[in-house]
């Protein structure tokens, strides 16, 4: 029986889709059967981030409305064994799907896959409720700024009250230089405020933009720092105990990362 994980945030643009693409690909690289579901109906993006936009025939709404079988709508990623995408509909809106239908869909996919990752839209309305309805656990993505952390807090409260206990947090786009200058909240500051477990810390990395341009998740790039971090998070999701790096070290986060992974000129 597979596990359904929703990737959510509250605030838009903090990196949910990037996280879904990279963790999904990372889990597939660990020989897991993975399906990614884009629930951002009307504003789909997971397809382009994954580089699969030209292969869409059916979408999520077609599946829940019974126009096709689930199998027909799944796009197989030919580059990575065991990785599939169920794209969102682009010409409909969030109300085209309801939570009950999502629960049923997740139930069906659970039989076949090890992991079902759900890319949640921004906001706390219908799209959010759809995305979380079938999930077993939740990952909340935030950036280290006041508004993203505030919205993450709100989302954590909503997840807790809808039976998704103990959400884990990924702090994205950390800029070690700014942290060292005292102009960006530290990981400890954010964890202190949100009072949830930390799943990973992703540095702000140009390689993310470059890999998104190409439609190849950074997790497959052995020279990308963010990619290395995503590989670690995927392993953590599988239960491996891999320490999270300290941003506040004297030596500097990037240097430490580079040394640890043997990367010379990563950024």
């Amino acid at each position, binding site marked *: 029986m597979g596990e359904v994980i929703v990737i959510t945030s509250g605030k838009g643009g903090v990196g949910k889709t990037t996280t879904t693409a990279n963790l999904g690909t990372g889990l597939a690289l660990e020989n897991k059967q993975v399906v990614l579901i884009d629930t951002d109906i009307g504003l789909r993006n997971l397809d382009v981030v994954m580089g699969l936009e030209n292969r869409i025939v059916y979408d999520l709404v077609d599946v829940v409305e019974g126009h096709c079988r689930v199998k027909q709508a799944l796009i197989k990623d030919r580059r990575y064994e065991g990785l599939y995408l169920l794209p969102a509909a682009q010409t409909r809106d969030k109300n085209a799907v309801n939570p009950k239908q999502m629960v049923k869909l997740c139930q069906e996919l659970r039989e076949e896959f090890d992991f079902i990752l759900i890319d949640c839209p921004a906001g706390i309305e219908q799209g959010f409720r759809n995305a979380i309805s079938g999930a077993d656990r939740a990952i909340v993505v935030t950036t280290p700024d006041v508004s993203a952390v*505030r919205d993450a807090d709100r989302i*954590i409260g909503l997840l*807790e009250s809808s039976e998704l*206990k103990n959400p884990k947090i990924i702090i994205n786009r950390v800029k070690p230089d700014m942290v060292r200058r*005292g102009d960006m*909240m530290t990981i400890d500051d954010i964890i202190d405020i949100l*009072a949830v477990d930390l799943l990973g810390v992703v540095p702000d990395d140009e390689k993310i933009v470059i890999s998104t341009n190409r439609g190849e998740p950074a997790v497959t790039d052995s020279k990308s720092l963010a990619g290395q971090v995503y590989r670690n998070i995927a392993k953590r999701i599988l239960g491996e105990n891999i320490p999270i790096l300290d941003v506040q070290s004297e030596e500097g986060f990037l240097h430490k990362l580079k040394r640890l992974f043997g990367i010379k000129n990563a950024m």
Partner: protein
Amino acid sequence: MLAGLLNLVSRKSRSSKDTAKERLKLVLIHDRANVSPQFLEMIKGEIIKVIQHYMDIDEDALDIQITRTKNDEGNGIVPALVANIPIKKVKNSGK
């Protein structure tokens, strides 16, 4: 000119991330429990009144906030009212 100078001084003495953290903490009190800062002030006043029967406390340093904490089973998070009340002296009248 003077304002600019003052600004410079205060920015030096306090990093922007500390300001961010402090502001977040305050705004989240309201977001989390749907209680107003005035409501918390009321609770604070009552707590001070009761405790002063038994001990001298440092009223200025008293800190009260609504935060989150793990529940007893460790599988969920519940809101918690946390008060940090520095004690100056315990009165003997209780004995």
